[in-house]
């Protein structure tokens, strides 16, 4: 019998392949959608593209925060409500305070909600689903308590953030991309980011390695809160009016973007770049269905089916390894 060596240098290459296959799935979908887009005249217009870029900002910011939480093995259902609260708070305060201060306070409210969620999950060891579900309704309620009618600031400068352009690209899109860039480096290159990923894989191993699970889980929810606060302020500024009812079900799009990007809801798996891909896919789907004048109920159905299809592609590409 021959004694062939088991150890084989191609294993390394293989894990690299697994990685790129996951991304290839997204690439493919983006490509198909892009081709479909070219087939309608309305897609490649300046107005439509600018709109597309602006519309993906909210989902994008929420999705990054959601990714960080999902990586720990948790979930943040409260982000849609935080969007509403941060927006209406900023709009309300902007009549009395300087605008930048009002905006910072809006974002800070998101951070605060994240801290509360994180504390309940990390410190009191409550289930993330339950905690953030409670937060979803509480924060929505608070938004209505603050103002049960929409607030439309008079001051022109309120709209600036949501409408400013950096050359051909909306400022808010640049902000979102910056969040993903910095956030990607955070997740993939810093000790805290790596700890968050490891916690989702096996929290007990991480705890016994001398890394505080609590602190990192708290950090994850705070980051999600920050992103939601920022998204709320930007959305209010873009629309020009803050509504306490805005953002219902936004958390679902955020979760969908993560999942399309290959993140595992069990935690420990997912990347910032792939999530951004997921955001792009969702935005393109929405945009195209609008351009093709698909009725909105059918839009929902199609979106659901497309999400399933993408996940199946993912699964298939993983199987092959």
């Amino acid at each position, binding site marked *: 019998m021959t004694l062939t060596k088991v150890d084989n240098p191609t294993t390394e290459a293989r894990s690299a392949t697994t990685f790129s296959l996951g991304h290839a799935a997204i690439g493919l979908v983006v490509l198909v959608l892009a081709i479909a887009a070219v087939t309608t005249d309305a897609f490649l217009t300046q107005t439509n593209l600018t709109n597309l870029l602006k519309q993906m900002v909210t989902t994008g910011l929420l999705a990054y925060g959601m990714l960080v939480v999902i990586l720990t093995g948790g979930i943040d259902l409260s982000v849609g409500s935080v969007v509403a609260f941060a927006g209406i708070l900023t709009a309300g305060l902007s009549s009395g305070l300087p605008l930048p201060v009002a905006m910072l306070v809006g974002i800070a409210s998101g951070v605060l909600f994240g801290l509360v969620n994180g504390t309940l999950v990390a410190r009191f060891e409550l289930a993330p689903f339950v905690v953030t579900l409670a937060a979803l309704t509480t924060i929505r309620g608070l938004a209505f308590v603050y103002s049960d009618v929409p607030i439309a600031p008079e001051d022109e400068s309120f709209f600036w953030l949501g409408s400013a352009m950096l050359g051909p690209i909306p400022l808010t899109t640049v902000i979102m991309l910056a969040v993903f860039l910095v956030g990607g480096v955070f997740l993939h290159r810093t000790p805290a980011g790596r700890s968050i990923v490891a916690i989702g894989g096996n929290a007990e191993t991480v705890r*016994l390695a*001398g890394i505080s699970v609590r602190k990192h889980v708290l950090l994850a929810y705070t980051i999600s809160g920050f992103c939601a606060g920022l998204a709320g302020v930007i959305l209010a500024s873009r629309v020009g009016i803050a509504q306490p009812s805005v953002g219902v079900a936004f958390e679902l799009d955020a979760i969908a973007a993560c999942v399309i990007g290959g993140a595992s809801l069990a935690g420990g798996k997912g990347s910032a770049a792939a999530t951004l891909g997921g955001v792009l896919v969702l935005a393109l789907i929405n945009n195209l269905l609008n351009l093709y004048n698909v009725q909105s109920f059918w839009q929902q159905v199609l979106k659901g089916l497309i999400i399933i299809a993408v996940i199946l592609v993912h699964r298939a590409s993983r199987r092959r390894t």
Partner: protein
Amino acid sequence: MRRTKLLELKAVHKAYAGVEVLHGVDLTGDRGEVIGVVGANGAGKSTLIKILAGAETMTAGELLIDGTQTRPGSPHDAHQHGIRTVYQELTLAPELTVTENLLLGRFPRKRGLIDWRAAHEQTKTLLDDIGFTSINPRQKAGRLSVAKQQMVEIAKALVAKPRVLVLDEPSAVLAGSDLDALFALIRRLQQQDTLVIYISHRLVEVLELATQIVVMKDGAVIATTIPAQTDEDELIRLMAGRRLEQIYPDRRAATDQPALVTKNLARDNEFRDVDLTIHKGEILGLFGLVGSGRTELAHCLFGATRPDHGWIELGGTPHTFKTPQDAIAAGLALVTEDRKGSGIVPDLTVRENVALTTLYATTRGGLVDQKAQRTAVQAMVDRLDIRPAHCATMPVVRLSGGNQQKAVLAKWLLKKPRVLILDEPTRGVDMATRVAIYRMVDELARSGVAVLLISSDLTEVLGATDRVLVMREGRIAGELRSEGATEDQVLAYSIGRAA
């Protein structure tokens, strides 16, 4: 005509994504046989039995049962053929009770509903029958010690009265009377014409139990023999491809400077009155049967749990560890016994797993210093001979069990502790690597590290240590100098029969 054998594997090949790990393995077994499968870590033993169990599919080859060709495509298929497997890694549902785990899918019913009383009774009878009397059927599986979980796994495989029972390192976590019960069980199954396939790194066991011994190396069977014609030394030589001159290092002189001292340490329902001293440069063994409180004590020393009474002193000053972080900051390290539950992060690479303890210490400008990490981890991989040699970028779950264990060990060695607590560190580790681990622990001790070595392996607990403490029912029941002590003495303390 030749009588058909119960089980025949012919020229089995297996590749994972193009990398072949089994290169044409043959294995034949018949009713009433016990086939012992031995081989170094990563030799392909688990892969082979996973194929038999239908958990993996072979790339090429044949499987014949009673002479008919089959190819189990799923564990369910294998069950249909009467093949049951106890895997190397625990697979019980932690939130379900022992009864639920055992009888899942075959509960006794009364008027359409599950008859829980009958179910618990049935479980109790089953466990008693096979000699595992110390398990409470109503307990959640996740609450049981690793050893008890292992017993439940074995019981679960037996519920369906299999014709072929495959055990992948079942004894790694068992000791004393539990081990005796397992052996008696295997002999009984043998008499009942069951074919038992038994994988173990404890060669003495294999020599005692097996009717046929199969030696694997690098994905192939390199020898088939019977116990009467071989011995431990020869098996080791075959597996490792070389002679192992000396298993345990020569003893060193330990210092008399205490490194870690406990005073009256106790945790309710776990252990009490624990007064122990580990000296600098000493390797202190801790032996005890399942449930004696060894692992609980280790977790408490490490700050993973808090003591109810008593305290810990390091270098003469009392310490309270609120978290493992505090303990680590004070120079402690703990290699836990439950590799899957608290040793690895399965989907992260070997590099990230090994680097976990030093994650926050290896940074440059706030970012993880990848280059330093790579160098440090590769040095550990080489030093502990973790295979394959380029495994640093592989997810740690893809390593064989023994190699995963080495990765866990590497994680703590990288941290350079002053007090090293090892809970079953050689579980599932092959002989050649054990020798390497003993040597490394010895080197650490020579450099002044205090080591607490918890083990259910009697030979190891005497051979690799300077002094042995024996725990029984939560207390330290005895202390022995390892030099000159016998295994019987240690056992006697552990079951309360010491003279």
